[in-house]
């Protein structure tokens, strides 16, 4: 019997492993089971404040354009159907279905009932210490379909 050998360089493939969404969902379920729903929010807040610190800095420099560029990049990468509407004081993200939720559902991974916090808490943390705030206007848990609004706390006169 011959030996099977597979050699790959990083450049041979694109980095897109959607099963990670399932692992994140499992992590949120674990947190809620062990520590309660607040722990899910605390963890996501801490993560977002730490990881997205450069993005928050960019929001303070460039305003909502920085958030538009961020969401344009990640939702395009994840092949989502979405629109982004940017005005001076508002950015509206209209997401037809969340690629993370759809992948979790398609693969049969457990979907955390707090998965919406990956939008709500994370985006609130992104806006913390900036002139902007976040509102999750609508959210459909089974698909992640949502309307997400970033807006200036006190609109410029």
């Amino acid at each position: 019997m011959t030996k099977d050998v597979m050699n790959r360089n990083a450049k041979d493939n694109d980095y897109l492993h959607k099963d990670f969404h399932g692992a994140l969902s499992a992590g949120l379920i674990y947190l809620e089971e062990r520590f309660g729903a607040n722990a899910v929010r605390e963890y996501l807040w801490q993560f977002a404040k730490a990881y997205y610190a450069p993005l928050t800095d960019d929001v303070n420099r460039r305003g909502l354009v920085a958030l538009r560029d961020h969401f344009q990049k990640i939702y395009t990468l994840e092949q989502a159907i979405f629109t982004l509407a940017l005005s001076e004081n508002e950015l509206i993200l209209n997401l037809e279905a969340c690629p993370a939720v759809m992948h979790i559902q398609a693969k049969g991974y457990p979907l955390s009932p707090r998965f919406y916090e990956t939008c709500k808490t994370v985006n609130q943390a992104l806006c913390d210490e900036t002139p902007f705030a976040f509102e999750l206007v609508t959210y459909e848990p089974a698909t992640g379909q949502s309307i997400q609004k970033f807006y200036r706390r006190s609109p410029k006169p």
Partner: protein
Amino acid sequence: MISCTEFIPAYSELFKFLEARGGKPMVYDFWNYLSDAFLGNLRDLVAQNGIRGCWLYWSHTLNEEAADFTMELDEEKGEFQILMHHCPSKGRLLKEKHLTAYRDYCEHCDVLYRRVLEPMGYECSLDRSQCDRAKCCFMVKSTKK
């Protein structure tokens, strides 16, 4: 949404969060939970295909993760090996300028996969001596005579 391309920092930060809550035992508890809850596909592939199930499982995941690796399967000897030349996950964490990786980040691979494979009759070893350079070697050997 946290993109799947941003998951690894989220994962590493979760380990830190759990350790702050309950020490290292809490991190182990989570890894055991994740292995049981999330690695059913590895378990099924090995149950159906023997050690080739490892080849099938990691052929999928390592290609999607754009890893730099050499993978070998010798079914006659009952041996499977991943020589990771550059782990995309640890590599990503080492590259982040504003975040530090969880101290024992690479240990999760050892705990998660060992927990699936050892009860199925396979011996696992993970050489983490070069993890600080995003390199490792994972070996699985059949213990069946």
